[in-house]
């Protein structure tokens, strides 16, 4: 049985922990709002890009000699998995969920006899995947100490990926990140980057189709498409980064909220136990005094 002093210390320590988790939750909430704003602000660009790309790609895709960024290299032997995670933990299952999805895909591809290369973005993903897929990790990037993600971060990454693609180091690139659905739900997502997945939103494409069909292209359709396709990589990576950071803070907020609540429960339980013990001690002492007095 722990002594009263031990229990007091224990309660004090849990209280301190609760304060920390509470503070972290509030910080995460504030950062989440900023991350969400950044993600929303970035949407118009991505949407416009996707629209133009969609209408262009549907025209050019079936022609021979289209950019390998769009139609692929014609092989699917070497896969590049770009796994984006956070730099920090204490965010529930956020990092491990992304890593789990990527690991499952990697193992499936390896089982099918494909070559898997992994590029990790963010420290936690690399740490997580290193254990069993360490040999497949070709490169690690992290944004440690970066306060505000800007497009140039995404561009740097995209440039590296394109260099690797041009050097023929892989055939298919897939991006793994966590899609921000809401503050409480984040979904690990795989998005094929190369060859580009051109999404044609059913409603949007029909509405835009008529307008886009009459566009003239300068200098030429192929050149605009080529420009857009390489730009699209950075845009998608940027989107992934922003979604990831919003998801991370959402996830961290939920995790810290849970931790705060658990700490509260624990404090209550410990306090009750402490008071019981204290009373028991007092009663015991009283009995001792009284029986001592009676004996006299």
């Amino acid at each position: 049985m722990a002594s009263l002093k031990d229990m007091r210390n224990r309660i004090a320590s849990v209280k301190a922990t609760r304060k920390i988790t509470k503070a972290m939750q509030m910080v995460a909430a504030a950062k989440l709002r900023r991350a969400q704003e950044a993600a929303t602000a970035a949407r118009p660009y991505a949407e416009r890009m996707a629209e133009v790309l969609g209408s262009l790609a549907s025209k050019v895709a079936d022609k021979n000699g289209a950019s390998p960024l769009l139609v692929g290299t014609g092989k699917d032997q070497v896969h590049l998995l770009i796994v984006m995670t956070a730099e920090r933990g204490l965010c529930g299952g956020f990092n491990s969920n992304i890593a789990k999805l990527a690991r499952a895909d990697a193992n499936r591809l390896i089982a099918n006899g494909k070559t898997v290369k992994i590029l990790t973005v963010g420290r936690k993903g690399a740490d997580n995947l290193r254990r069993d897929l360490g040999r497949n990790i070709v490169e690690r990037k992290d944004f440690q100490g970066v306060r505000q993600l800007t497009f140039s971060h995404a561009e740097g990454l995209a440039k590296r990926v394109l260099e690797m693609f041009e050097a023929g180091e892989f055939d298919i690139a897939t991006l793994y990140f966590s899609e921000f659905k809401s503050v409480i739900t984040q979904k690990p997502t795989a998005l094929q980057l190369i060859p580009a997945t051109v999404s044609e939103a059913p409603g949007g494409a029909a509405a835009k189709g008529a307008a886009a069909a009459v566009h003239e292209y300068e200098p030429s359709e192929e050149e605009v498409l080529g420009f857009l396709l390489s730009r699209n990589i950075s845009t998608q990576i940027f989107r992934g980064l922003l979604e990831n950071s919003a998801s991370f803070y959402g996830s961290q907020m939920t995790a810290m909220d849970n931790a705060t609540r658990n700490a509260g429960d624990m404090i209550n339980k410990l306090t009750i136990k402490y008071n019981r013990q204290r009373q028991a001690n007092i009663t015991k002492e009283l009995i001792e005094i009284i029986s001592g007095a009676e004996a006299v």
Partner: protein
Amino acid sequence: MAGTFRFELVSPERVLLSVDADQVVVPGDDGDFAVLAGHAPVISTLRPGVLDVTAGSVHKRLFVKSGFVEVDPSRLTVLAETAYDLDDVSAATMAEELKTAEAELLAAKDDSAKRRADTLVSELRRLSTRAA
């Protein structure tokens, strides 16, 4: 004059500018072109240069590095990674941009990259001497 049209300047990070403009001169890859309301639909890539925006009595000059434009009869959307308002931008920023552009020019491997970097450098030089 056919009136105004919606001009939007969008960067990957946010919408930088959204105004009703009378005329915008766009530095297209195949040469500058002016957009008025009711312009024929065009999609063009941009070369480094200055967007000249006239909206009522307000006149704005915006420097863009690269990107593309989508023109509709009632709308003009410019998607650019970086844009500077030439009236606001400091000489230091321009000098820094020039420095990175020059480094890019030196690092450029193939012809098209070299050409792009070259236009960027000369455009920046021209602008910074004029600003100084």
